[in-house]
């Protein structure tokens, strides 16, 4: 296998260091900002991840150091392994919907693979299922001890019967090396995986004790705020000293702190809504607040691909549920006409209310909700809208405010904006934003308020600091009133504008490049560029991808279950290891197993090149290129990245 052999090493450290001085035209006349000092400005020297250019850095994988050494005009405040260094202003793009263009649905943009691919995929699954049953049949007779926990014994029914667990045991176990990979360190641009081996066909995974640094195209780190160094981490450290680690209780009992109040006010401003509330877990934001809004006699209309947390919440609520075809607005309208005219089943009474729940960006498909169409439908059919922006908040829109920002729709035309802080903000938990009465009612009636632990101070601080960096902080300008000559700081907030000082904790002190919002803006532009580049690049290389070009989630279709394992391993075992997420049935339909790339602002253009090159090589080996023709060569794609991004 030539693919496993290591390619020639990229720039070794010694040559890197010599190139360093050559590449630095300002070195002599501008001594105040030498690169070394700018790089180490926000990092502590005792840390493991600190990248100061010492001689002992091993850059054999090309991940630790940028391919081109920086010159002194480029000041980077981030650690390259956490957040890649990229100062080229061309590699930026504005994430915005061009009004007048159509929003692709789901089916009309997905090219079909050749029939032999579908056929072989079905045969693969059939074979796996047959083999599994044969092994079970023989195994139960030859080695009954190994099956004891699946069989009734001693008057107990098995916790997990052989039938229920068949899929897990006989199909998933075969590809367990792709799942649950333990990691360590920051889930930033790169991530360190703990190497593991399985001596017994994936039944046990043994950690070998060594680590491998890999390019991370899998974490939901859209804006690259997963950082152990920098302004946000500094703020969190201050917070731990000031507030401790826990708030000790639920929001309504003894666990509310002033940080919660501040953060909720800031989140409301960020979303452009009247009020917002914060919950300590993203899953629970859906699962414990939906039941507070709808119940018996209400109808929930849910997209068929909605996240499990939404389904969980709807099931708890006791409301009726109807589903419509993924992102299909005609199907939604037909369903609305049917349910409103028919009323409740059997009794035909009118529904108390109808809540349409959609996601802003679908995590397995990368499709963007057709929000303008839904808002139009809302005018006629008077339903309420709940938009789950778990993946889209921060990642989309010219100001990072999610799908409403991307489509330039006033956020208040949506009733409830829900989202999580896990993804773009590098934190944890979730929020709900809406009008004040609604949010107050949810504070009292949602399950989380009374019973669930409140969000902890460090997590809140990460939210506040990263959100303020995206928004920028308004410098309190003095406005002179006509009548009197007194100066008053203006605190008015205009959506989407910078965050007023009053919404931030007094002790929060962000470095200038974060406080003025310049880095936030640059991050938004970088993720928009990276997403489009990877998406269009893969299409030009002949792969079948799903989703909207603006989406940072880029699914690449692999189809056959056997190839998914191989794809994962081939990516991981490269000279520059890349970790990827592969998803198969039941998370996706049987025939559309895929690898899901999650692009980040932390990636540089060179990182995307690396991923494209890897896909290009592996795509031939695994025969997964079934997309459009004519195709471009990989060198064409890398060289014409700027043209690609402008496409569509």
């Amino acid at each position, binding site marked *: 296998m030539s693919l496993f052999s290591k390619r020639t090493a990229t720039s070794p450290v010694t040559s890197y260091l010599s190139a360093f001085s050559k590449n630095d035209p300002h070195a002599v006349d501008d001594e105040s900002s030498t690169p070394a000092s700018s790089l180490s400005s926000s990092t502590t020297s005792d840390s493991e991840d600190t990248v100061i250019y010492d001689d002992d850095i091993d850059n054999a994988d090309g991940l630790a150091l940028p391919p081109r050494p920086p010159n002194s005009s480029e000041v980077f405040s981030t650690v390259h392994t956490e957040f890649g260094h990229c100062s080229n202003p061309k590699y930026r793009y504005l994430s915005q919907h061009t009004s007048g263009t159509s929003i692709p649905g789901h089916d009309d943009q997905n090219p079909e693979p050749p029939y032999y691919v579908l056929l072989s995929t079905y045969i693969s699954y059939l074979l796996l299922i047959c083999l599994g049953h044969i092994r079970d049949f023989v195994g139960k007779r030859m080695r009954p001890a190994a099956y004891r926990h699946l069989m009734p014994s001693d008057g107990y029914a098995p916790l997990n019967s052989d039938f229920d667990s068949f899929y897990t045991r006989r199909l998933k176990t075969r590809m367990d090396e792709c799942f649950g990979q333990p990691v360590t360190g920051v889930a930033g641009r790169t991530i360190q995986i*703990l190497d593991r081996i399985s001596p017994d066909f994936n039944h046990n995974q043994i950690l070998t004790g060594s680590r491998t640094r890999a390019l991370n195209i899998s974490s939901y780190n859209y804006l690259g705020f997963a950082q152990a160094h920098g302004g946000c981490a500094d703020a969190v450290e201050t917070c731990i000293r000031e507030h401790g680690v826990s708030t000790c209780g639920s929001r309504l009992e003894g666990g509310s702190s002033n940080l919660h109040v501040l953060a909720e006010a800031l989140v409301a401003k960020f979303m452009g809504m009247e009020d917002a509330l914060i919950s300590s877990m993203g899953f629970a934001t859906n699962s414990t607040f939906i039941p507070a809004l709808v119940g018996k006699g209400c109808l929930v209309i849910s997209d068929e691909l909605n996240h499990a947390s939404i389904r969980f919440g709807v099931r708890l609520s006791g409301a009726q549920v109807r589903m419509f075809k993924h992102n299909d607005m005609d199907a939604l309208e037909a369903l609305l006409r049917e349910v409103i005219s028919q009323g409740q089943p059997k009794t035909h009474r009118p529904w108390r209310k109808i809540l349409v729940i959609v996601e802003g960006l679908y995590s397995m498909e990368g499709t963007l909700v057709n929000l303008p169409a839904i808002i139009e439908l809302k005018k006629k059919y008077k339903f309420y809208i709940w938009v789950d922006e778990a993946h889209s908040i921060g990642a989309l829109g010219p100001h990072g405010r999610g799908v409403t920002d991307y489509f330039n729709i006033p956020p208040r035309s949506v009733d409830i904006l829900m989202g999580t802080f896990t993804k773009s903000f590098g934190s944890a938990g979730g929020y709900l934003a809406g009008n004040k009465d609604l949010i107050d009612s949810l504070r009292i009636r949602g399950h989380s308020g009374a019973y669930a632990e409140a969000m902890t101070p460090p997590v809140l601080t990460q939210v506040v600091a990263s959100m303020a960096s995206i928004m920028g902080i308004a410098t309190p300008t003095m406005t002179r009133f006509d009548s009197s000559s007194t100066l008053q700081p203006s605190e008015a907030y205009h959506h989407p504008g910078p965050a007023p000082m009053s919404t931030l904790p007094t002790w929060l002190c962000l470095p200038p490049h974060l406080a003025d919002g310049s880095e936030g803006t640059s991050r938004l532009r970088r993720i928009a560029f990276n997403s489009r580049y990877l998406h269009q690049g893969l299409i030009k290389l002949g792969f079948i991808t799903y989703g909207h070009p603006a989406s940072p989630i880029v699914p690449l279709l692999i189809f056959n279950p056997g190839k998914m394992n191989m794809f994962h391993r081939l990516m991981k075992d490269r000279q520059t290891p890349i970790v990827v997420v592969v998803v198969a049935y039941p998370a996706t339909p049987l025939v559309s197993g895929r690898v899901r790339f999650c692009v980040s602002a932390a990636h540089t253009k060179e990182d995307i090149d690396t991923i494209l090159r890897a896909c290009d090589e592996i795509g031939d080996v695994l025969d997964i290129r079934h997309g459009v023709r004519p195709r471009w060569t990989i060198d064409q794609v890398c060289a014409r990245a700027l043209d690609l991004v402008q496409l569509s």
Partner: protein
Amino acid sequence: MSSTTESLNALLASLGQAFDKIPGSAVLVRYVKSSHQNDPGRTVLEVILIIFAIFTLLQSRTRGNDGRHFIKFEDKEIDELVDEWTPEPLAAPLNAFEASDLAAVPIIVGHNGPKPTLARQPTKMIANLASYNFTGLAGKEVIKERAIETLRKYGLGSCGPPGFYGTLDVHMTLERDIADFLGTEAAIIYSQGFSTISSVIPAFCKRGDIIVADRGVNFTIQKGIQISRSTVRWYDHNDLKSLEDVLDSVEKERKKRRGPLTRRFIITEGIFEKDGAMIDLPKLIELKYRKKYRLILDESISFGTVGRTGRGLTELYNVPATKVDILIGSMANGLCAAGGFCAGSQHVIDHQQINGPSFVYSASMPALLAVSASEGIDILRSSPSILTKLQQNIRVARTILDELDCISVPSHPASPIIHLHIRKPTPTLLHPSSAVSAGHSLKPSNPTSVLPREAVNWDWDTDAEERALQQVVEEALRRGVMITRAKRLRGQEMVEARPSIKLALTSELSTDEVKKAVKVVAQALKDVLRK
């Protein structure tokens, strides 16, 4: 006329030929013929079966699209109906009491602890008896230092679910620490304590399985049971005799129906969140082994608060934790960190790694919180004096509270949370659990209903009691003691719990401080309730 018969015959003949051409048709014909010959009734039966099968297949599987109830409308009519329809507002606005309740929630400025600073503080704070800081881990400098160290190595968020590069080495360490601490084979951590058991229950209990649960279980267990769609039977709150009766009746029912052997679970709490009562674990375990049930035990309150080193009920009663099949605890309550865990055998844990909804579909816990929890376990393990101190404070508080005649205390003497109910002047209205002994009902409650039989005798005025207790809370705060009512989701709970004040004791206060604080509470209770 004859021409139609002819053409019909021709058609039949050609159909017959076509049928003969299908491979295997001869076998089918022979089978039908011979079976008809043997038993003509069987043919009729089979035809009916085929029709039934086709009918079932053709029926739509989704609800709502039910053919019988579907009314056909013209487009214009639908438009009119759409125009006429006016939905209710999305959420009803808060009523006056709820609004004042929300406004009265204490907001802590800065560090939470035994004597926090509040945003609206009338007087100097004497003690905080509202926050869950049982063993004082919230203020430990060593935990903060470890958290900061972790932050500098891992950043804050994990940016992914456990299955997709969200499993950190510190998570695995914490799982190992919990399993070692409790003495179980393995453990699994969830990123929110509240969402742990409501996810664990549906991971194991499926449709057709049997759950026998206490009537007084907390809200999240109720939700877990609801989502599992299992068959539920209820037994009287903290009454093992009632449990045994219900187990017997379930077995009788199964024998009568000759049903298959399904999974059977007993679900209860170690210390009940609703009233602080404690179960008799050894007896419960003896019972579950005898009746061949599995035990799901929620130790969210008891883990980290009872037992010599805070291992919970299993340590208190000296029962090996391996005897509890599925043990759930909360790192947010017991360890002042965040999240929850489930401990049990390796099979139990492995199963959840792909079947626990809030484990699989949620981002994993931030690294620094996991490390804080590990550090908390270390502290508990190495300094049993903290737990002694906590228990001592609980005793001090109980001595004062038990003497009050305006309240009744349903909590167990060792429970770190102490619930206070208003005692009615008439002696007939005692706490629900004592109502049985008062001779109100000799017949056992109906196991299929979550309401106990004596519920008809419950005549407390929820609103009035809530208001009175809120006055007590505010009065106590005016005198420098922060306490809280037990907040409930009225209208959403299966059984409406009696309004109560919930005190949470902590080891961080000295005995004198606890004495002083509880006396303040007692005085506030007397002053308000005697009015």
